[in-house]
């Protein structure tokens, strides 16, 4: 169901919408003040009630993650905000940082209180120069007003917020790679355990959260955790509140739309997105960033026999509410909730070829299955599009991708394998056609 909301996006597109004056006119910074007056435990409890499933892609419950931080420790704690936003198709966090930076800064104050930290680092990918400038601007405005620093709002709980910059590497979005990068090292993922809550930034307990997860925290403390969660149609599945939905590719109105959780792909594509570009038909959709499996327009969902899922049993996948558990149970992945839409003008083989180039380029190279596997698949797909591959080699794509899955240090490997496995199995005839006709029968392209 479409339920548009404006908690994060109210001032998007307004002149000076990112300034402190605008933010405070809308009630800004009251939540941070409130949270600083609460005990750490109470802050975490409120966050748990909100049932915010991490907005960075893995969908882990935010309040629960905060509760993993040690109750007592001699070392400092850190909040690290993941603003690396590099997942293909994902462009939501950038809108927050550029157009509502104070929500993120205020969220950092609340997050620091919740996890017992006195400092937050916002790790922004280097390319987002405007986002970094707006964040620094917001931090300075907030500090000048006494909302940050040694005694924010006069409370004896120091909070500092810093912007840190990356240097071009998708893998730094993976939380442990991000920590290495923050520490001034190569951005290679770390083996887990230890988890960041034990040994994170600078060897200290650390929580890594996505930009949107933190930026929505002020809304939670404004409405109350339970009321926030209930905004969602999937509140009964502990998937609460509102979030930013994105849609790109072949729709008439690509963009970011804030809605209550419970929106469907059909609504995102056809209503918010204005339908398929040029009045064409939908070929396929990748629900939440390129590392999710692709889905054909005609897929029907089969969910676990569980009353909670009964309403959607046997329906089109396009009518399944976009939720962490709904999509996971349907054999998909919600990811970042930013869908990539492919019209029937698209050649799915070329789309697969485009994606493997991304993964080959971005693999950090630590694990053999990921480093070599992405390279092997790329070489096979090069042959496929040049019309020199064999049917055996198509099967090899599936075999190689299956061998990456589950055999690597970080989830990048799975993220690279998912699109390969799903594209090749769901569009097998198109791949075979390339093999049979040497690619000559293809009239479709990537561009529509």
């Amino acid at each position, binding site marked *: 169901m479409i339920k548009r909301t404006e908690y994060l996006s109210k001032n998007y597109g307004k002149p000076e919408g990112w300034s402190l004056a605008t933010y405070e006119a809308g009630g800004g910074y009251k939540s941070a003040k409130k949270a600083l007056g609460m005990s750490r435990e109470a802050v975490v409890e409120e966050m748990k009630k909100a049932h915010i499933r991490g907005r960075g892609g893995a969908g882990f419950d935010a309040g629960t993650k905060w509760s993993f931080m040690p109750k007592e420790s001699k070392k*400092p704690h850190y909040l690290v905000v993941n603003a690396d*936003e*590099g*997942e*293909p*198709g*994902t*462009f939501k*966090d*950038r809108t927050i940082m550029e157009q509502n930076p104070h929500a993120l800064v205020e969220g950092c104050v609340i997050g620091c209180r919740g996890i017992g930290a006195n400092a937050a680092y916002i790790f922004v*990918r*280097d*390319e*987002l*120069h*405007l986002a970094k400038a707006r964040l620094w601007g917001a931090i300075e405005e907030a500090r000048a007003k006494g909302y940050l620093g040694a005694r924010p709002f006069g409370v004896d709980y120091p909070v500092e917020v*810093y912007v*840190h*910059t*990356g*240097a*071009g*590497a*998708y893998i730094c979005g993976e939380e442990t790679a991000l920590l290495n*990068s*923050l*520490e*001034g*090292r*190569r*951005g*290679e993922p770390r083996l887990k355990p230890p988890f960041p809550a034990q040994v994170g930034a*600078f060897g200290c307990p650390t929580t890594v959260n996505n930009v949107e997860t933190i930026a929505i925290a002020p809304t939670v403390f404004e409405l109350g955790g339970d009321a926030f969660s209930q905004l969602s149609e999937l509140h009964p599945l502990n998937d609460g509140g509102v979030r930013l939905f*994105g*849609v*790109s*590719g*072949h729709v008439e109105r*690509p*963009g*970011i739309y804030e809605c209550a959780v419970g929106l469907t792909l059909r609504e995102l594509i056809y209503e918010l997105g204005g339908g398929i570009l040029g009045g064409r038909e939908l070929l396929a959709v990748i629900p939440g960033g*390129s590392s999710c499996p692709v889905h054909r327009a005609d897929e029907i969902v089969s969910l676990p026999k569980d009353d909670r899922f009964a309403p959607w049993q046997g329906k089109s996948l396009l009518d399944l509410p976009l939720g962490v558990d709904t999509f996971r149970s349907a054999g998909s992945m919600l990811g970042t909730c*930013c869908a*990539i*839409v*492919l019209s029937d003008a*698209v050649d799915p083989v070329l*789309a697969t070829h*485009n*994606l493997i*180039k*991304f993964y080959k*380029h*971005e693999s950090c190279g630590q694990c053999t299955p990921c480093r070599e596997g992405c390279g092997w698949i790329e070489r096979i797909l090069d042959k496929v599009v040049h019309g020199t591959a064999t049917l055996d080699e198509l099967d090899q794509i599936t075999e190689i991708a299956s061998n990456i899955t589950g055999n690597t240090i970080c989830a990048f490997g799975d993220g690279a394998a998912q699109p390969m496995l799903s594209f090749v199995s769901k569009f097998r005839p198109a791949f075979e056609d390339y093999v049979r006709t040497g690619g000559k029968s293809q009239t479709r392209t*990537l*561009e*529509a």
Partner: protein
Amino acid sequence: MPFALSDELERELERIRARYPNAMAACIPTLHLCQDANHGWVSDEVIQFVATRLGLSPAHVKGVVTFYSLFNEERPGKHQVWVCRTLSCALRGSGSLLEHCEKKLGIRSGETTKDGKITLRTAECLASCGSGPVMQVDKTYHEGLTPARVDEILDRLLAD
């Protein structure tokens, strides 16, 4: 000639260092600062400078530089242009856009024009997927591009 920062940038370096509990964490922001001050690239002298200033081994700094795609190990053109090639932009025509740039500039992606004005490269997803095709020029994004708009932008850079 050894690399050095102006007094103003030295103060900026101090501000960067003060943000972190140790000097190594300042490595990447410091490299950006120095790269910007060194015509857009990280020379051996810059590596030596950063290593000395932050008390790191040059090998560590070199390892960092080679890992990240935005540190240049060779001097780029006066302006750097990146065309996003990833899926959402490709669906919106970034392939043709890149070809258009290559033809107009007479170079292939990865190369620099003879007059040293423009280095053309592809980028992976720039977090602007809803407004593709997208191109980053130095520190600015240009979104929803058409060939005419690209010509305008490139002409301005070539004339600079």
